[in-house]
């Protein structure tokens, strides 16, 4: 058995890990205290109507922990339960955490893994996302850092994508996708000519972590490992950004510049070329260090304008 343990690939893949495994590997060892944990059995009251099973934590872990010795609040969505979608209880736990962050001035780490609103409780989920955005922005206006971590199977879709873009800093892997409307939904509504959801290379170069990093939609690109996320999160908290009128004016300018520079692009590769990156065709295949080396100095950066 010890021989077996020695041979394991001990890198915890963020993509593969569960919400609990992600938090365990992200924060200081054993430092998590969970709020309204599974033993409280606060499950969704709505899924039974659809004959669907509940999960004891409704698909999200929230709590307090230490990150490199600093007291933080943490949340992690479980992308495999109902696609990590926001339901009433799920959403309310994150609302509470962000309200507490403002009250206690503690920074927050949110591990996103979500398809957006949970259909079976759509109104409650939609409203929860609105409450989360409000609580998050108020916490940031009070000086709290909110760091989003994206690299799960479900990506960060729908309202999740909006919440993510409200964070102070976003850390992504190439697997991490950030978007509002999902590929299948665009294809269903607008046709396969508009969006071929089966063409996965296309999906990832349009919505994936590398593209988001290149256009300034994410701030740090890391390898698919919990250790890399941890290091990047520590780095993010040690270089805080502010949210004020100046930040949003800068973001306005940044987003308008993006429209002006790339507004006519048909494909992500045209944007990458316009950034001056050359060549672009093998960008998706590159490992993180080669990618960062090639993108260095050429990408659009949010630089705190978020």
């Amino acid at each position, binding site marked *: 058995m010890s021989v077996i343990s020695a041979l394991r690939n001990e890198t915890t893949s963020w993509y593969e890990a*569960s*919400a*609990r495994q992600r938090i365990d590997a992200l924060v200081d060892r*054993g430092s*998590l205290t969970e709020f309204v944990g*599974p*033993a409280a*059995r606060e499950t969704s009251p709505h899924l*039974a109507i659809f*004959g*669907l*099973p*509940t*999960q*004891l934590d409704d698909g999200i872990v929230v709590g307090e922990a230490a990150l490199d010795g600093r007291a933080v609040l943490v949340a992690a969505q*479980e992308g*495999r*339960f109902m696609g990590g979608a926001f339901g009433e209880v799920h959403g309310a736990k994150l609302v509470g955490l962000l309200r507490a962050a403002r009250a206690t001035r503690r920074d927050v780490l949110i591990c996103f893994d979500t398809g957006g609103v949970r259909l079976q409780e759509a109104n409650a989920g939609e409203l929860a996302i609105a409450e989360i955005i409000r609580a998050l922005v108020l916490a940031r206006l009070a000086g709290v850092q909110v760091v989003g971590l994206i690299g799960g199977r479900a990506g960060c879709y729908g309202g999740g994508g909006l919440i993510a873009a409200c964070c102070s800093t976003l850390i992504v892997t190439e697997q991490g996708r950030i978007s509002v409307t999902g590929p299948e939904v665009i294809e269903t509504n607008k046709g396969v000519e508009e969006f071929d959801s089966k063409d996965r290379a296309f999906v990832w170069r349009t919505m994936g972590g590398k593209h988001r990093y290149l256009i300034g939609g994410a701030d740090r690109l890391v390898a698919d490992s919990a250790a890399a996320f941890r290091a990047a999160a520590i780095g993010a908290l040690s270089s805080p950004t502010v949210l004020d009128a100046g930040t949003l004016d800068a973001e306005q300018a940044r987003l308008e510049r993006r429209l002006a520079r790339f507004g006519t692009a048909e494909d992500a590769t045209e944007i990458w070329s316009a950034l001056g990156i050359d060549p672009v065709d093998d960008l998706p295949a590159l490992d993180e260090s080669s990618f960062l080396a090639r993108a260095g100095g050429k990408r659009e950066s949010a630089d705190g304008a978020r």
Partner: protein
Amino acid sequence: MERLTFTLAAAKQAGGLRQQAIIGVVASGNLEVMLERSAPSGTCTFEIETAAHGFGAVWEAVLNDFVARRAAGGLRITINDGGARPDTVALRLAQGVRLIEGDEA
């Protein structure tokens, strides 16, 4: 959803110090298992909610083997099941016992 409960004699008392452990997720073909040290010693209780109907006999067979093989005395075990196969159920239960046997975190 089908709800099943079982109370089984479990000779071997669960080891370790943790009060609670949870493993797995509720997804298609998967399940979550929560173990709490709150059943009378010598017994192991199971509360199961499952999306797959009509598998009571299979559950009973899996759980009987589990309490015979693993130290599960004194555990209250809560299961939410997304239609997992018996081998997955047995694996999660074993993983759960290993987890609760760990040191208090």
